[in-house]
């Protein structure tokens, strides 16, 4: 009995030593990969930051109005945001590679899935960013045009444009990531279609007189209105 116990313990000890002998080099490899990944990620971040400074991305982002939204969301500048994103995406990739080296059963499949998702997530973030910039630029252009032309409710026009572009960007981003793909497409089609149909009905049926007045004012009386203000030059 005693011998069996000792033999069992010895076997367990041997197995543990054997496992540790197998695991520790892998752990070491993982740590090396993570540290190398950290260095590579830091290098890429510094490189990207320098390139973006040279290309004056912050100025572009400021002009397009995207920086204002970043500040509202307490986020850093566009250059900093993109370089930090690259750092974390790169380092996360190395960490996942390191974890896969450990050879822990069950983790391999999950890591593979995560790897497949990474580019999609990056593309989705890019789509959202471009959507944000485009929505902000076009809605501001519409607001200025409406205000300077003296149209009523310019903010409604501006927010409508912003809403449509945001909805489009969010739907595209979710579709890229593959989250409830069918639902997103269907929901977007319904919302966008309903919005446009609502506008068409409101303007076509409910506002026939308004539409006529609007067109007449713009097409027929534009010249007369233009002359109500003295010539600027």
């Amino acid at each position, binding site marked *: 009995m005693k011998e069996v116990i000792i033999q069992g313990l010895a076997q367990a000890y041997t197995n543990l030593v054997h496992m540790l002998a197998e695991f520790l080099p892998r752990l070491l490899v993982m740590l090396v990969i993570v540290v190398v990944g950290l260095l590579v990620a830091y290098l890429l971040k510094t490189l990207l930051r320098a390139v973006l400074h040279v290309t004056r991305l912050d100025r572009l982002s400021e002009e397009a109005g995207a920086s204002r939204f970043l500040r509202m969301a307490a986020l850093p500048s566009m250059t900093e945001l993109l370089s930090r994103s690259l750092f974390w995406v790169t380092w996360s990739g190395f960490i996942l590679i390191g974890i896969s080296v450990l050879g822990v059963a069950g983790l391999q499949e999950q890591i593979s899935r995560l790897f497949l998702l990474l580019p999609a997530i990056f593309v989705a973030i890019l789509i959202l960013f471009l959507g944000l910039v485009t929505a902000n630029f076009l809605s501001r252009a519409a607001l200025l045009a409406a*205000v300077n032309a003296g149209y009523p409710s310019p903010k409604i026009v501006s927010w409508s444009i912003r809403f449509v572009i945001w909805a489009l960007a969010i739907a595209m981003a979710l579709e890229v990531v593959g989250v409830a793909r069918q639902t997103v497409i269907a929901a977007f089609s319904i919302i966008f279609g309903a919005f446009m149909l609502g506008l068409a009905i409101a303007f076509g049926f409910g506002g026939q007189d308004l539409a006529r007045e609007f067109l007449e004012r713009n097409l027929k009386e534009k010249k007369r209105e233009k002359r*109500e*203000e*003295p*010539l600027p*030059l």
Partner: protein
Amino acid sequence: MSVGEVDLLVGIPSYNNAATMGQTIATIEESFQQNFVRDRVVILNVDGGSSDDTRNILLQRNERRNGGHRGLTSLRTVHRVSWAYGSAPSSGLAVRTILAAADLLRAKSCAIVSPTTTNLTSSWVANLLRPIYRERFDFLAPLYTRNKFQGLLARSLLYPMSRAVFGYRIRELYSDEWGFSGRLASQCLDQDVWHEEAVRTRPEAWMAVTAISAELNCCQYFLGQKAAPASGTGPDIVEAIRQAVGSLFWCLEKYESRWLNRTGSQTVPTFGPDHELSEESPPANPEKIFEMFRSGVNELEPLLASILASETHAQVKAIALLDAERFRFANELWVRTLYDFAASYHHAVLNRDHLVQSVVPLYRGMLYSFLVQHANSSADEMEAGAEQLGLEFERQKPYLVERWKGEKLR
């Protein structure tokens, strides 16, 4: 047709101007016959893809040269050249083509006239060319008799601000007619700015600022009354501000090293009176202009907050709350507002075209204030007011320099 070297060149940018082109050519020819009989001259039409007979009119006139000019005959050939520079009109491209021709032909004195000016006279053409040809000026700006309530963007913004910033009292930086030397043409051609929006839309202002910045000799010549453009032509307020104010702000950016340390302003040699106002009744419905100012300040509040200093913005919002009867846009506030805009343009706090468009409601406020204040003023009183505004721009220039050099507002 070979032209060779010329002494004088008159450029005519055109686009669908068949109705007035014949008269413009005849006037220029008449001016040559009367004033420059011994000089080598060329008329250069640069066309932006007219779909009417604009270019044919020039070519047809070519065949009956010297016909019916009151017996006067030039001793030289009056060359006429027409060139289509593209399929769409572009002021910048047209002027660049004219400058290139002037440089190629070694023209000593050049003028640009517009076929849309319906009351162009032969003396105008001569007066645009002669000071440069005979007295070695490099840039000549026109002066016109202004209607009391027209051209207020030029009088309340473009002239006083450019005067304070660049230090030269040139009243008409933005015009359809101007003159320049071959030397200035060569200098302008050498610059890599022709792709810039400000140069493409308003090349004349950029040429003037280039001449000022290079300390070339500038002058003004009083031409007379300029007929108002036919209904439907000429830019409206929004387009005029986008072009002219955008161009002025761009010139500030481009030539900052030339003006940041300059103080005061100096007059330039002027032929004839330096201003003249004709009587005109004010617009019938200025209240609408005030309403557009008020709604603009309200609707664009977030944009204005990012452009204007907080104190300036607070004052603008305060005056927008006043009744139309009590409303006044004080010179001091107007000047500080524009300097805030110029500095924010420099710091690119938002898209620059959007920033310039945001000037429109505030200009309407100033316009309304001016119309009410000067409804019954004499020409002298209005000129005194314009001079006060010019001095206010000069007095506050250190504020512009401070904001220009400082950090953006946040």
